[in-house]
């Protein structure tokens, strides 16, 4: 295999990484916001349940969570076969592919990632929202602003400024956690490099994969750094 063939093959795997990364972000941010509102709720049962949920999810290794999501429907007796494998087969026959596709398993991984990261995000959001002093809300209130206006025009930007550094950390961790999709045989970048190593005895692509991660994380770091800088004109 030439360098370019290997690069292309790895790039295909990295595409999956990026897809998982993006979908997780898009879904986990709103869900995390929802969970953070639940954990701050004045309705005690909701608060308790959501806090226990966050504790459970944050306490379970993501790898284990992936397995749990993957096996859970089968355990609950939904379908004779693992429901995600059934999906795999369905998509494979739909596409008329000779190789087994991995759409079902990808969904299982995505669910695990979204649950895991929405819980982490929710704690960051809670910290950010709680860091805004009562005085900011009250100042808006005595100026006759509505609750929505206070949130959108006063609180939101301060919260974003406050959560950006911890969010940057989580986002970068998320990039690297995508490698865990390996656990249920999704052909992401590291899996492909590993196959080359075991199948064709080419070892160096394993090291080469690091370049992809480093470039991606580097780009993200610059982007997030810019956002932080943009908000540095005020002190919350």
């Amino acid at each position, binding site marked *: 295999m030439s360098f370019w063939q290997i690069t292309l093959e790895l790039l295909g795997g990295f595409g999956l990484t990026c897809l998982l990364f993006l979908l997780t972000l898009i879904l986990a941010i709103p869900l995390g916001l929802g969970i953070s509102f639940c954990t701050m709720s004045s309705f005690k049962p909701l608060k308790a349940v959501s806090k226990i949920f966050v504790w459970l999810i944050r306490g379970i290794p993501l790898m284990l969570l992936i397995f749990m999501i993957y096996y859970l429907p089968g355990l609950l007796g939904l379908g004779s076969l693992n429901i995600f494998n059934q999906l795999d087969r369905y998509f494979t026959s739909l596409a008329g592919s000779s190789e087994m596709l991995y759409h079902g398993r990808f969904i299982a991984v995505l669910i695990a990632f979204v649950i895991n990261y929405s819980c982490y995000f929710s704690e960051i959001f809670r910290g950010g929202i709680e860091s805004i002093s009562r*005085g900011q809300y*009250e100042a*808006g209130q*005595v*100026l*006759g*602003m509505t609750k929505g206006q206070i949130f959108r025009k006063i609180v939101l930007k301060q919260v974003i400024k406050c959560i950006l550094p911890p969010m940057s950390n989580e986002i970068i961790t998320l990039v690297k956690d995508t490698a865990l999709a390996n656990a249920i045989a999704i052909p992401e970048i590291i899996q492909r490099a590993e196959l080359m190593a075991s199948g064709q005895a080419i070892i160096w692509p394993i090291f080469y994969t690091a370049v992809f991660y480093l470039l991606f994380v580097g780009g993200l770091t610059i982007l997030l750094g810019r956002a932080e800088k943009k908000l540095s004109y005020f002190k*919350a």
Partner: protein
Amino acid sequence: MFLEVKNLTKSFGETQVLQGINFGLEKGQVLSIIGSSGSGKTTLLRCINALETADGGEIYVDGNKIFDAAEQKNKKSKTKNILNFGFVFQSFNLFPQYTALENITLAPSLKIREAYKQKSITKDEMKEKLAEIENNALSLLAKVGLSEKKNSYPCQLSGGQQQRVSIARALALSPDVLCFDEPTSALDPEITGEVLKIIKSLAAENMTMIIVTHEMAFARDVSDKIIFMDGGVISAEGSPAELFAQRENRRLQAFLSSFYDMAK
């Protein structure tokens, strides 16, 4: 009476913080509220400004009932009386992401934009009103002596300057009554003067004001009327001369002498 507060009560859990407060204030008058820590001064001001909901009592402005605790229990609309009052906080509470000018224009512009969205004004009217709001804000900044700071963010302003901006912000909505909760307590002693000067100039313009303060000399100079609060009730009230002459009120004397001791 322009402002009338009738039998206002408020409890936090078991402790009754306001035990039936009654007072009135004529338009253009300045009322100072003094009293020891925990006597309920802030709570009274917050109830008047709807930051807390009083358990009992009524508030009238210009003959209109703007608050009635009895009605409050049935419906949840708390914001009704808000715009009759302006509130200046001890800790300023400027919005950090906005410049001094934007802090002042934010709330009034939002109201105009809302009116445009509701289609009660045309786009041209909106633009005209927004320009008006900006001009008004600029003249308010000039009034508090901060014209050259209009583009500064709160973190670039001293405490005294921040408090002056927050006074301008409250004035921008032209409230009937402007309330201050210890406006200089968070400031270094040498800059309290700049804020007190602004308040005095407002008094000279016949702005109706309620001021909670620990600055006795200031209260004496600026007030038409002073209320001494003690344990959730009004223990003494009157013009500055009357109040400071009430020798028989032990609590008041003890409170006042603690200030003279501090001054020595």
